[in-house]
């Protein structure tokens, strides 16, 4: 039998798709901001913090990088309530993504910090800056500038990975596809259209992040 693709059957569900799209975008933006903030603190702690703290951060990074996101998500959503921390689907999704991106960005930003020449830190110190001022003005900014492309592609990987949050019934783009195909039985069409939506999101995000990088870090590096 020859199957005929019927994309028209998706049209009645456009609002479901739109809501899913918005959820995915918001979830990505919020957890990106939080994850990069976690990464900045984590990287600073690893590079300059006391030894025990650096060790804790290193363990966090390795645990997250060496386990699947879906397991982290299930742990947060199903496991944490047994400790008394009850989360909604959206909260669990946000928390899991932040923890995940936080670990990767800690590692990325740390590489940037470690690439800071020792002489720059001495120059900052010699200009009577405090340790925190040196960290902020002399170390972190160039570290971000240097690692921005890596950070940007990690953000996109995390966005694509967010499709897994549909598995705890967080109502994202993938959830929308699941919902539609359960109603109209047009599984392939639904997933194909949603896959294209992710592709467009990824391409748009890449362009936006590149533009943001150019704006945040003007000028050529040596």
């Amino acid at each position: 039998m020859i199957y005929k693709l019927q994309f028209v059957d998706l049209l009645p569900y456009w609002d479901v798709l739109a809501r899913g799209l918005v959820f995915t975008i918001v979830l990505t933006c919020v957890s990106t901001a939080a994850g990069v903030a976690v990464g900045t603190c984590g990287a600073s702690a690893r590079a300059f913090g006391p030894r025990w703290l650096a060790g804790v951060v290193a363990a966090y990074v390795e645990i997250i990088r060496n386990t699947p996101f879906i397991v982290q998500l299930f742990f947060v959503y199903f496991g944490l309530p047994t400790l008394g921390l009850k989360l909604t689907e959206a909260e669990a999704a946000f928390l899991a993504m932040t923890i995940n991106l936080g670990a990767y960005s800690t590692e990325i930003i740390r590489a940037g910090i470690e690439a800071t020449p020792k002489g720059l830190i001495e120059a900052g110190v010699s200009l009577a800056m405090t340790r925190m001022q040196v960290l902020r003005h002399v170390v972190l900014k160039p570290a971000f500038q240097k690692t921005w492309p890596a950070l940007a592609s990690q953000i996109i990987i995390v966005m694509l990975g967010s499709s897994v949050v549909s598995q705890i019934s967080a109502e994202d783009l993938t959830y929308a596809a699941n919902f539609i195909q359960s109603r109209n039985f047009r599984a392939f069409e639904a997933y194909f259209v949603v896959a294209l939506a992710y592709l467009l999101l990824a391409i748009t995000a890449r362009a936006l992040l590149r533009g943001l990088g150019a704006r945040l870090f003007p000028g050529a590096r040596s």
Partner: protein
Amino acid sequence: MPLVSIRDVRKRFGENEVLKGVSVSVEKGDVVAIIGRSGSGKSTLLRCVNGLETHDSGSIVVDETPVDNARTDMRELRKHVGMVFQQFNLFPHLTAAGNVMLAPRVVNGVSEKEARDLAAAMLAKVGLSEKMDAWPSQLSGGQQQRVAIARALAMNPKVLLCDEITSALDPELVNEVLRVVEKLAAEGMTLILVTHEMRFARDVGTKLVFMHQGMVHEEGPPKELMAAPRTPELRQFIGAIA
């Protein structure tokens, strides 16, 4: 009371004692050139003066403030002690003006506009008015080093430490940097330079310090010392360089 007084300073890195009781005093307006072979301890001595290295014993006093990492407010000290490095160490993410403005802004809390005016004045002083908005990567080594000098001057230091500031430069770029330092000396800035530029030390210096194996081997007026070295080590050193 001398502006900078270094007395019997000792410093060891593990087994290796690099400073074995060094004493030097620097009066206001002095231009002190420290010379000597690599490994003689001259850079370490300079770095002890603004606390980038800690000394093990002896005393260093700058403008009546003892330099003692455990007790002194090192930031307060460093506001008055500028430093220029061999490798320039310009901040790559900031323009020339941005490099000069950073410390006045974050350390002294100067406004953006004032800081920019200050940067303009300092960059003019080193002959780089037209390079205010250039990035370090767009500047030659000589220009970068002049920006680094402007950056140090912007904090209005009482003494400026120069650690082999021409050693990383191509030969044709050395003079533009030395001319700036000479001008500073003529304006009365107190300078302590670790240098290999013997002619510059002789013509501009008010005092020459020859270091050898972690000690001050000879010191005195540059012209006298170079014309008639008292020890064979200095004679040999001058012979090797010239």
